[in-house]
């Protein structure tokens, strides 16, 4: 029974190491996910350097290849040095994840490449500790992984299934993987509500200039520089000065901030001298560059 338990740990660790290798090699981490300073408080230089190093592609590929080699070695050989190396690797990973949880939880642990971008929590630390315990338990396993696989006893299959289920339950990467899968199948994440979706002003101008509302009023717009640009909920408003029938007017455009199917509405209103005086001072210079 004890031997079968030890053999199961070999299979589990090989599976985990190969999965980590595959994830690190195939799922890249996002480059600009973690800010270097927030609200005027810089992240300590040492921590920032370590975080940058941890996120570098070269290091991730190297780590992934190392994990792949260890995983394959567990499958093909029962040599003790391999088992010791695996145990040391998991012990080191536990220490690193624990440190990250205390110092940079927002940076993600990167255990499974770009899938591990969520903040480091207790689950990640507990998972690493359990893997270390498994690695210690596997030190005395008599068989290599492939030999165990050739004739899998029922107890090993049951235990491995339970352990893999526990591994999945402790892994914040599983929801990320499901989301990636759904996105690949075209279903993707739920859309961000238009009220709180970040919408760059350049996107607003693109939608505006492509709209029939702009074409209709383009000829009466007196200046390329808008008087005012602001946003309320799902709409960004752009006000341009206009000249109609020898009178000063204003054309107001409301551009939707939704992800797709952006609507553009427009209205012509009488110019209010007080509004114009306020707004002209603060009309954006970046806006003129886009026209």
């Amino acid at each position, binding site marked *: 029974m004890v031997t079968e338990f030890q053999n199961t740990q070999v299979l589990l660790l090989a599976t985990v190491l190969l999965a980590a290798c595959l994830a690190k090699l195939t799922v890249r981490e996002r480059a600009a996910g973690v800010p270097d300073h927030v609200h005027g*408080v810089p992240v300590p230089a040492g921590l920032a350097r370590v975080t940058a190093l941890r996120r570098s592609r070269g290091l991730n590929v190297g780590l992934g290849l190392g994990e792949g080699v260890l995983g394959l070695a567990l499958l093909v050989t029962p040599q003790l040095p391999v088992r010791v190396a695996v145990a040391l690797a998991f012990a080191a990973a536990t220490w690193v994840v624990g440190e990250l949880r205390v110092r940079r939880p927002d940076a993600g642990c990167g255990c499974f490449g770009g899938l591990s971008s969520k903040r480091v929590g207790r689950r990640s630390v507990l998972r690493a500790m359990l893997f270390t315990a498994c690695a210690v338990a596997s030190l005395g396993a008599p068989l290599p992984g492939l030999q165990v696989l050739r004739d899998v006893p029922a107890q090993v299959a049951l235990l491995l299934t339970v352990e893999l289920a526990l591994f999945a339950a402790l892994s914040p990467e599983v929801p990320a993987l499901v989301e990636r899968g759904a996105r690949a199948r075209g279903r993707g994440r739920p859309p961000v509500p238009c009220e709180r979706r970040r919408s760059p*002003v350049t996107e607003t101008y693109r939608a505006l200039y492509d709209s029939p*509302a702009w074409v209709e009023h383009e000829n009466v717009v007196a200046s390329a520089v808008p008087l005012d*640009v602001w946003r309320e909920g*799902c709409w*960004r408003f752009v006000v341009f000065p206009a000249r109609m029938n020898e009178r000063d007017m204003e054309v107001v455009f409301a551009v939707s901030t939704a992800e797709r199917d952006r609507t*553009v509405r427009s209205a012509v209103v009488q110019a209010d001298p007080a509004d114009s005086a306020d707004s002209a001072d603060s009309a954006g210079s970046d806006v003129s560059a886009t026209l």
Partner: protein
Amino acid sequence: MPLPRRRGAGRSRHREAVLGAPPPPRTGLPENAARPLGAVTGTIVDASPHLLVLRTRRAGATTRETETRIPMTGTTTVWHGGRGGLAALRPGREVIVRPGEDGLGADRVWVDVARVTGTILACGRDTVEVDMGPHRGRAHVVIPPYALERVLVRHPRMEPGYLIDVICVRSPGGPQAVRPGTSQPGYRADDLAAPEPGAPVPGTVHGTVTWFGSLGEGAPPHAGAAYPAVDPEGDAGGCPDAPSGCVALPYLSLGSEITVHNECSGRATTVPVVECGCSAARYCDRCVECGTSPRGRIAELTPAAFVGLGGDLEAGCFNAVVRPGAPGALAVPAAVSGRAGRW
């Protein structure tokens, strides 16, 4: 009229021209909410046990000063870093007065009160350097020995990178902390758990509402709010590096209006957004003034607005419901001369 309110009026006119008048809200605040009290802010000219004479600034096309006389009663309490008594009412000091329910006399008077909220940049033996955000700058707060324990009880992590929120008394040497404003969040300022990107935006938001700023020169005498989700693009007035906050709020701009209901006092009012509330966006705290509010600092009010809604400045917060005045995606123009197109 102050600039955000004037600009807000212009923007409101433009918005209604293109989208039509907003429909009456279907959800939100209780209809029988009481009106706000008329808080008075000014500089003490003279004070006696029966009368407080203030030089007040009235906001208009041009700010002008007038003299206001407020009767004092036997039940009037004065705060100046604690219970101050009439001796704290010295000429030249800045005060804010909340009238009683009958509106005939002063109920509470706060003298030289200020609040510092932000991220700790550096700590000395009895001083703290605080970054209050890009639009409020930095503050050098002195924490005197008598207040240090009280502050430390609710701010155990006086380290750079953590948040601080203290009620202060103005002094020539800068603000002096007298008590904590709220409990310090346990996370670093940059370590905020934001809502899921797809989280829906409710019509009304429950949470905690606090106040910001100080009395005196440069302080807004009128009612207004710092809103955590001010759009950083165009002329909206938001801070570029503001976090998304821990409550799903719609983006607004300076001059937009929000309706705030104090659940503890039952008073409600509509105030314009006068500042970006990027400091408030970093707080995921609760208020326990009357029950426990949901997490999230959903607005910071000017002292005048906070006091007018029945809040106690030294308490720091009240449980609130806020209805942002944001038109939804389905806003349909009603009899406007506008045209719509889809691309």
